[in-house]
């Protein structure tokens, strides 16, 4: 596999029963690139993320990350290698505080050995304190209000803030690849504006970080993504800049087909 790509998939395929959700997918991302991933509902975008992050095992094909074959590895191993993600339906740790959530993002670099916790607790306490400071720093980079209120439960937050915490948690693991799954879902236009600013801040602070972002809101894709890939029925049907892709007849048909179906039912 070529080494200048941070992520590369070859012939990636996964079936669920009779349905082929991702079909012989070849996908490449370079370091520092920001990729948009669009396509009608059910085209396999989130499934693709789930395979990359290790939640699903593909039946065929390979995934290479940072020069290593990570096909079929478990989710926690893949995170520890440097892939972080957010979830469409916001999987935060609801009964924990904002700060705890972000600190858990740092787990991949420290785990926690029972021996140390029991017998070298001074060291553990210092590590936690340092982590807490780093977490507050990450939070305040995006929103000083959030970092001030870091002891609040995440369940008390607005959707915009929840997404912000999720992104901070993902960044806390110092990843090389960030997967954002429909980050603007459930947001008002104002919140979406702020989200785009936040993603801009991410690229500013972490210029080497590669980002793949799934979105239905084309405004976000247009503003953020350098290159866009379009999925349909688990296959890649178009690739290029936003303007190229949006005028591609096959892409239009894929989306129109979805609208027609919605209109008919």
């Amino acid at each position: 596999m070529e080494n200048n790509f941070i992520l590369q998939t070859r012939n990636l395929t996964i079936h669920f029963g009779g349905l082929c959700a991702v079909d012989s997918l070849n996908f490449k991302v370079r370091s520092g690139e920001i990729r948009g991933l669009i396509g009608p509902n059910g085209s396999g975008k989130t499934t693709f993320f789930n395979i990359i992050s290790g939640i699903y095992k593909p039946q065929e094909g390979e995934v290479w990350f940072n020069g290593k074959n990570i096909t079929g590895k478990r989710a926690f191993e893949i995170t520890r290698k440097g892939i972080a993600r957010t979830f469409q339906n916001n999987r935060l740790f609801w009964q924990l505080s904002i700060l705890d959530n972000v600190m858990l993002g740092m787990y991949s670099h420290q785990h926690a050995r029972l021996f140390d916790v029991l017998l070298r607790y001074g060291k553990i306490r210092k590590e936690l304190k340092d982590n807490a400071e780093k977490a507050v720093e990450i939070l305040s980079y995006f929103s000083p209000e959030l970092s001030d209120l870091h002891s609040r439960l995440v369940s008390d937050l607005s959707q915009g803030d929840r997404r912000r915490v999720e992104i901070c948690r993902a960044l806390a693991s110092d990843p090389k690849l960030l997967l954002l799954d429909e980050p603007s879902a459930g947001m008002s236009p104002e919140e979406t504006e702020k989200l785009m600013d936040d993603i801009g801040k991410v690229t500013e602070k972490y210029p080497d970080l590669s980002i793949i972002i799934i979105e239905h809101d084309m405004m976000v894709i247009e503003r953020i993504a350098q290159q866009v890939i379009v999925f349909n029925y688990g296959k890649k049907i178009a690739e290029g800049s936003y303007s190229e892709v949006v005028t591609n007849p096959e892409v239009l048909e894929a989306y129109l087909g979805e609208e027609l179906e919605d209109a008919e039912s």
Partner: protein
Amino acid sequence: MVKKHFGDIGLLFLLQTVFFGLIMVFLIVEKIVLVLSVIFGTIFISFLIVKLKPVNQFLQSLFNKYKKVALCWGVLFILVLPLLLHESPYLIHMLFMAGLYAVLAIGLDFQVGSTHLVNFATAADYGIGAYTAALLAVNFGWSFWVLLPLSGLAAALFGFLLGLPTMKTKTYYLSLVTIAVGLIIYLLLNNLSWTGGPNGIAGIPLPSIGGFSFGSVLNIFGLELPFQANFYYLILAILLVEFIVARRLYNSLIGLSWNAIRDDEIAAQCQGINVTSSKIMAFYTNAFFDGLAGAIYAFSVGFISPENFAFMLSVIVITMVIIGGMGNTTGVIFGATIMTLIPEKFQVVQSYRLWLFAIVILVMLLVRPKGLFPQKIRQYS
């Protein structure tokens, strides 16, 4: 300024002393009517304190300001209890049992409270610890002090092995597996010849330390305390160790990862948490302390049988965690204490114990599922 401090401390002292006085009354008094009035009076006052915001806040700030003082006075009271009760060996034994259950409950809290792994095999861990200690003491004469950690390790090994098959299961099915295993252990203890079968194991000697036997009377400040006090102080020491361990686990990435697994297992995996090994760690850390408690129990009563380690015990300990507070160590100690002392006080209730526990669980889960004392938010200075 100084006057205010003294005034506040004096008030704190007074409030705590009144509370301790109530506890003493509850313990000593025997007429059911009086016991009931103490209980209901306490519930009523607690209810008022919780509902009346200004009172609530005042008390909380008072305790937070003078935490060390409150703690010292509380610890002193606990240490001095046997002296106050030196004429009632039965009461001291009851407090010892409350401490024993507290040890079991804090361990179970790692699983039920922090990680939401509802484990019904506490009796099995406890029994393995007890039988390991009893068999090695009676057959090979090993010392209590060697057997104590050994029983913990034996139970921990069992906990680890119990954890493995449950990893393929979720929620209710995990509980079913633990119920089944608990039953298997009970049946094994009841039917294997070398465990003594239904007759159990008798003749477990009393522990001794430096020539002083735990069966002898304890002389403190000229007072003669019945031998039960020795075991009371022993279980306090173990509780202290366990409390420190529980706090360290809680305020560490281990405790955080357990909570993360509880809240969202998939998101937890995606933070780099090896969910399987974290869950198994919850199993064997819980089991270790159950094993310690088992060994202490065996040596304190001198005779054990499979009946002591039946399913009912697991249910009782789970009730204590549910009442006390999931993920709150102090709450769990409180839950264990009241669920031991109250049924003891109401001997009539003994035949209806199952009803009592069932009703309590139902009420708690409906009204306050997180327990009387909910989990505290972690603070990092």
